[in-house]
């Protein structure tokens, strides 16, 4: 775990995606996710694409999974708030191992009330849909949680949400 602890979170997460044979990385940008998005784009073996909407990314990853390519949707909390309908009518009932990485905005020092309100809708929606969810706060736990969760999602054909807490990423802070 010492080696892992010395690597930044985005390097660890990228390595976990690779070791679990994730070949498609879709995202709608988020400031905190920037280093992960960059490392994904720089990886020639990962098909990395920006979607216009998180719902669209969810559709793309669903189709790719059915075609034999495992994929992930990376998004911000506010992006998650746009996908409950697609989760409830596509990913969950069709039993798709949809891997979601959510950069958590709206808590631990949020400066935008709108973001704070949106954040409060996320976990109740995940709970209502019975989606396996982990909030990752510590770098030394990241590899274990992400690796095991992706394996479980694939083996049980179920979506999973990995919420990256500001405790892990540093989050986005207000600068005057």
């Amino acid at each position, binding site marked *: 775990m010492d080696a892992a602890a010395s690597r930044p979170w985005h390097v660890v997460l990228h390595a976990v995606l690779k070791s679990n044979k994730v070949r*498609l990385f879709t995202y709608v940008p988020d400031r905190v996710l920037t280093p992960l998005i960059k490392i994904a784009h720089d990886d020639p073996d990962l*098909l990395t*694409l*920006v*979607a*216009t*909407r998180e*719902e*669209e*990314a*969810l*559709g*793309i*990853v*669903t*189709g*790719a*999974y*059915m*075609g*034999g*390519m495992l*994929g992930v949707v990376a998004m911000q909390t506010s992006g998650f708030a746009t996908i409950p*309908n*697609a989760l*409830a*009518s*596509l990913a969950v*009932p*069709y*039993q*798709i191992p949809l891997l979601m990485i959510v950069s958590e905005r709206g808590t631990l020092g949020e400066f935008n009330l709108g973001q704070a309100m949106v954040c409060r809708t996320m976990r109740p929606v995940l709970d209502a849909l019975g989606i396996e969810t982990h909030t990752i706060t510590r770098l030394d736990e990241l590899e274990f949680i992400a690796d095991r969760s992706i394996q479980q999602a694939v083996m049980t054909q179920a979506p999973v949400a990995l919420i990256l807490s500001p405790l892990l990423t540093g989050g986005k802070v207000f600068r005057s």
Partner: protein
Amino acid sequence: MDTNTTAHHGNRKVMNRFDVTQRLVARLHKNEAVIGGIGNTNFDLWMAGQRPQNFYMLGSMGLACPIALGVALAQPGRGVVALEGDGSLLMQLSCLATIGTLKPKNLLILVMDNACYQITGSQPTATASNVDLVGVARASGLESSHWAADEPSFEHLVERCLAEPGPHLIAVRIDGKSATGSTERDPVAIRQRFMRGISTAA
């Protein structure tokens, strides 16, 4: 009742979804994957014959094209067709921007334009007045986007689009009729059959 008579439609013939879907299916000779959008498009696809390479979307309005794009990216050697209604495409119009940017060679979008949200009560969509979905697609980077003038023109376009590198979009003016039946609604069975159907070489 046909409200499908706006200027951008010119003299294009008003066709029928089920008839057009049958003509499409009859031209699929390479185990092409077909994604049926919400409601009528997947119902008529089901009624046109339950190919194992068909995927039927029971909700997630607007996601037929994104799902088809995902299949197309995962299996570049297989032709993939998305069947979408005009209302559904308008809901996720920005997927054309993504497809126009990525330009997957093996993707064909077929838009069934009845100028209304038929299944919810035939309320008019924006294509009933001034929106030309072929124009939107072209402006989004899908240069190979076409209106079918009539049935022979549709058949010719399908054959050409399946043979030549895409992405392609074919739009068809259709009447206001509902689908001819409906799909069995077991999502897991639909997915498993589809995955088996596209697990062997195209």
